[in-house]
C-alpha cells in the first residue's frame, strides 16, 4: 500500500495522524511552467519600465532581476505557502512534519534549485523525485519539505431528511459506514444510478426501484440519528 499510494502520514504530538497527499513530477512541472511564464512577464515589465531611468534605472533593474531569480519562490512560499504557479495547481509547500514551510527551509529548497536544474531543465531534480519515496527533489531533501495538494474546502452535505428505519440485519462498522457514505453521495448521483446501487441490496431490503433508495436512506438516517 505504501509503495503505490501517494498519501503520507505524519503523527502529531496529540497522537493524530495527518494525511498528506504528495504531488508528483507532472503537476509540479506544470506549476513550474506557470511560474516561469509569470517570471518572464515580470522580467519584461521590469526591463520595460526601468529602461527609461538611465544608470540608476539599470541598477534597479539588475537588482530586481537578482531578486526575481532567487527570491520569487521564497517570498510567495512564506506569504501563502506556495508560488502562484503551485497555488493555481492546488499545491502547497510544507515541512515534512505538516507545519508551514519555515524561512530557513524555503531558502534552502530554492537556493538548491541551482543544483536541481543541472544539467538542463531540472534533470537532476526529476531523477531525485523518481528515486525518492516522497517526490522530493534535492532541494526538498535538504530542506525537509514536501509539496502536497492543498486540502480542498469540503462542503458539508446534510443528509436527506429520510424517515429513520432500523436495518433488518446486524451490520459491521464498515458496512454501516458504506451505507452512510451512499447517503452522502446520493445528491451527486443520477436517479438511475441511485436506484441501480440501492437495488443491489435487494437480498437485505427486499425492495427494488425508488423504494430501495428510500429504504437505504432510512437505514443511513437511523445509523446517524437514531430512531427519532
Amino acid at each position: 500500500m505504501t509503495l503505490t499510494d501517494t498519501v503520507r502520514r505524519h503523527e502529531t504530538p496529540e497522537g493524530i495522524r495527518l494525511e498528506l497527499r504528495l504531488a508528483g513530477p507532472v503537476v509540479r512541472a506544470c506549476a513550474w511552467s506557470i511560474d516561469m511564464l509569470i517570471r518572464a512577464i515580470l522580467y519584461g515589465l521590469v526591463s520595460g519600465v526601468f529602461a527609461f531611468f538611465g544608470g540608476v534605472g539599470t541598477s534597479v533593474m539588475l537588482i530586481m532581476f537578482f531578486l526575481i531569480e532567487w527570491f520569487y519562490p521564497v517570498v510567495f512560499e512564506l506569504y501563502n505557502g506556495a508560488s502562484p504557479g503551485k497555488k493555481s495547481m492546488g499545491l502547497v509547500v510544507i515541512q515534512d512534519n505538516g507545519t508551514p514551510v519555515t524561512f530557513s527551509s524555503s531558502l534552502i529548497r530554492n537556493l538548491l534549485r541551482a543544483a536541481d536544474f543541472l544539467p538542463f531543465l531540472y534533470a537532476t531534480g526529476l531523477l531525485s523525485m523518481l528515486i525518492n519515496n516522497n517526490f522530493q527533489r534535492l532541494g526538498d531533501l535538504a530542506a525537509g519539505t514536501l509539496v502536497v495538494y492543498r486540502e480542498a474546502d469540503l462542503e458539508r452535505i446534510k443528509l436527506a431528511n429520510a424517515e429513520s428505519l432500523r436495518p433488518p440485519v446486524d451490520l459491521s462498522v464498515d458496512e454501516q459506514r458504506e451505507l452512510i457514505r451512499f447517503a452522502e453521495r446520493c445528491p451527486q448521483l443520477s436517479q438511475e444510478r441511485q436506484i441501480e446501487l440501492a437495488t443491489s441490496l435487494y437480498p437485505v431490503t427486499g425492495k427494488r426501484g425508488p423504494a430501495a433508495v428510500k429504504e437505504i436512506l432510512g437505514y443511513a438516517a437511523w445509523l446517524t440519528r437514531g430512531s427519532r
Partner: protein
Amino acid sequence: MKQEQFEQRYQPLWQRLDQQLDQLETFRLRRSSDELPADLPQLYRQLCNHYALSRARRYSPQLVGFLHRLVLRGHQQLYTRRGAWLWRLLTFIASDFPASLRLNIGYVWVALALFLLPALLVGGYCMIDDTFIHSLMSDAEISNMEEMYRPDNARPGRTLERSADSDFVMFGFYIYNNIGIGFRTFAMGILAGVGTVFTLFYNGIVIGGVAGYLTGLGYTDTFWSFVCGHSALELTAIVISGAAGLMIGRGVISPGRYSRLDAIKLQAGKAVPLVMGAGLMLLGAAFIEAFWSASSLPNTVKYVAAIILWIMMILYFMFAGRGADGAR
C-alpha cells in the same frame, strides 16, 4: 453516541476554532491582532480528540474529512514560528552568524585552503611566467582585463565600454553576478560536495591568475588599489559560501550516526546561517566595489581603509556574539 448528536454537541466548538484559524491564516499585516487566542491550544486538543473518536466510531467520511481538515489547519497554526523578523535579522548579524561560523570553523578552513592554495600557486607562477595566463583564459578575456587595470585608465576596474556606466549600474551588476555566484557555490554542495570544491578551486585559479599576471605586468597601483577595498568582504564571503556547500556535501558523503537523509537535512539547516551571512557580505562588497573602489580617492586612503576593514571583519568573526546563549 450517534453521529448527529455528536455533531450537534460539538458544532459550536468547531465553528469557534474555524473562526480563530481563519483569523490566523490571513496575512500578518492585515490581521487585527497578532496574539494567539488563549484558548486555541485547548480547542485544538479537543478537536484532535473528536477527530480520533470520529474515526474510531466510523462516522461518515464527510465528517471525518471535515475534522481532518480542521486538525491540519490547527496543527499548522499551532506549531509555527511567528513574528519579529526584523529583530531576528539584527540578532542574526550581531551574534548568530559569527557564532555559527565559529561553530563550523573547520569547514571554513578547508574551503579557505581549497581557494587560497591554487590562488597562491597559480598567482605566483603567473607573476613569473606571463605566458601561463593564456592557458587559463581566452585572449579576449585577457585583453579585457588588461584594459580594465591599465595605469592610464581613468576608471580602473571597468573596460572602456563600461567606463561610461554610472556607479549605480555597476552596483546592480555586482549584486546580480556576485551574490549569484555565492549562492551557486553553496547549492553545488548537494552534489556530494564536488560542485563546491570545483567552484572554489576554479575561482582560486582565476582570481589568483589575474592578480599574479597584472602584478607581473606592473599594473599594481590600479589593480590592488581597486580590489583591496572590497576584497575583505567578497573573498571571505565566497569562502564562507564554499564552507556552507562543503557542510551539505559532508552530509551526503559521511552521514556519521544519522541516516543519510537526516544528515543532509541537519547539515543544510546548519549551513543556512552561513549562506545568508555570505549573501549579506556580498551585498556590502557590491556596495563598496561600486561606490568606493571605483572612486578617485588617493590610493593610500584606499589601502588604509582596506586594512581597517580586514581587521574589523576578523575581530567581528572572532568576538561578535560570544557568550550569548552560551555560544562560543
